[in-house]
């Protein structure tokens, strides 16, 4: 509870500083809207031309897209400290100030960054979810709402965990942006479509190493009453937890890496 209060207070303060540059902030938020709108338009154009994708209807595709974009941009909104700012925190020595305070380093990193511009991207994602839900004729009940929330939360942990790879590299002052982008942004691009359209190696990658298939596709397809690979209901509840597993693993790695932190930035 105490940590939660600290987090909301920190984020409130960051918002204050963002709003000191109002016009630039509005401009950037609009740019984000156009960006995610463009991504969405591509899916609409694809549905318009191809109608369906290996048994998935247009509505299904919108739903997958919405799940991914809500999870991804919520992570960027709240986890900017990890998804964007961390290498700079190392370079400017802000990590040093975190280390001399009696709080968890990861907590402080997360408290140290937010990206409110993503709010428009999330709005596009929510619109896609609603559209997908209507077109797929999903009949909602409490269990489905629970699975939806669980799936988004776990996908967020997974995405955060993947971005932590870059954070860990930057502790050793190794630049890895482009390589890590392949798995993070690449994962987003690939997994906003259903996983079973991909050949086995790609499927394995996104099931075992970056398990978007487990945190997102299994529960989402169950919600749409089209369970992936025909897996039983309980899998929709259990497999998303792999997101937490990845996050915990990466957190441990992160703290191990901190022991070798050299603090060269100044």
């Amino acid at each position, binding site marked *: 509870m*105490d940590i939660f209060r600290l987090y909301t*207070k920190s984020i409130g303060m960051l918002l*204050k500083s963002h709003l*000191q540059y109002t016009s630039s902030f509005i401009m950037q938020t609009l740019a984000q809207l156009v960006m995610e709108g463009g991504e969405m338009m591509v899916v609409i154009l694809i549905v318009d031309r191809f109608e369906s994708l290996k048994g998935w209807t247009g509505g299904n595709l919108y739903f997958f897209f919405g799940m991914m974009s809500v999870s991804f941009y919520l992570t960027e909104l709240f986890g900017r400290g990890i998804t964007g700012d961390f290498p700079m925190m190392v370079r400017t020595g802000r990590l*040093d*100030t975190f280390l*001399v305070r*009696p709080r968890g380093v990861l907590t402080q990193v997360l408290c140290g960054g937010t990206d409110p511009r993503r709010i428009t991207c999330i709005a596009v994602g929510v619109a896609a979810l609603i559209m997908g839900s209507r077109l797929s004729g999903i009949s909602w009940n409490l269990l489905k709402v629970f699975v939806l929330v669980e799936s988004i939360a776990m996908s967020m942990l997974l995405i955060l965990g993947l971005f932590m790879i870059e954070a860990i590299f930057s502790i050793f002052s190794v630049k890895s942006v482009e390589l890590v982008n392949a798995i993070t942004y690449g994962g987003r691009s690939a997994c906003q479509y259903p996983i079973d359209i991909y050949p086995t190696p790609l499927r394995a990658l996104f099931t075992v190493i970056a398990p978007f298939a487990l945190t997102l596709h299994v529960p989402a397809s169950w919600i749409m009453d089209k369970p992936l690979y025909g897996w039983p209901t309980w899998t929709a509840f259990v497999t998303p937890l792999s997101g937490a597993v990845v996050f915990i693993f990466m957190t441990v790695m992160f703290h191990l890496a901190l022991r070798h932190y*050299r603090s060269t930035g*100044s």
Partner: protein
Amino acid sequence: MSYIEVNNLKKDFVVKKKREKGRLLREKDTVNALKGISFSVDKGELVGYIGPNGAGKSTTVKILSGILTPDGGSATVGGLVPWHERKAHVKNIGVVFGQRSQLWWDVPIIDSYSLLKDIYRIPQRDYEARLKELSEALQLDELMKTPLRLLSLGQRMRAELCGSLLHRPELLFLDEPTIGLDAVSKLSLREFLKWENKEHGTTIMLTTHDMEDIAALCSRVMVIGHGQKLFDGKLNDLLERFDTVRNVSVKYDAALPELVLPEGVECSKTEDGIKLSYKPSKLPTAKLLSILQDAGNISELTLQPENTDHLIAAMYKELDL
């Protein structure tokens, strides 16, 4: 046992060399930043820690404040090992890095303090009392609502000090606190540090290049070079042992007056004035200046600044490093 105990502390850094032509992998080099340093500091001491750039000053401070993990040796602060019990340890310390800020750039400094209150879990009443005390001592009252980025360098340093002392740390590390400050700011900063040390018994360890800082503040000084401790003791002893000569040039309005100078001062005439060389350990600078002033109206006076680099250079010569 002393408050800070450091024993044979070692730290190596691996540095990648520039890639040579025709080689696929870069060669690596190990740099011994600390080659086994030992010292102890008692509670309430005010210690100056000096040495040339790259000598290992910051490395020591960073290990003692829990940022770096050493490669060998041991260290405890108040019985805690900084890199093992980081959170418990850093509750009791404050750190000010001269060139980087721990406050938030775009928001009023009072907001930063309020967040620090939550980070350190300071009780509200305690926080209010301490903030009042510090803002009086540091003259921050007027500045509380100003964002950090709009403060001058001197004001910023005062704001940083306040932030690092809110939680009443037992130990304060200062990494080159006076760098870039004007003379007035330097003086008031030193006054404050003396006050904090006296009033609350806060142990202070400061690294600096400015001998005036040391002379004004520290009863004890440690010198480090090439990762080794070269000297540990009183400032006067240091000055005596590795005495360097300091130069003053003076010009007078009228003709050169007769100067009665104590022994050990060399005097030579220049075109329109005189140049004096003296040893500050034998003859305090203030005394020499008053002698010069009493002799006549001074039109121009240049005092060669005293800095640690001269001293260290002399020490290296003597210790053959």
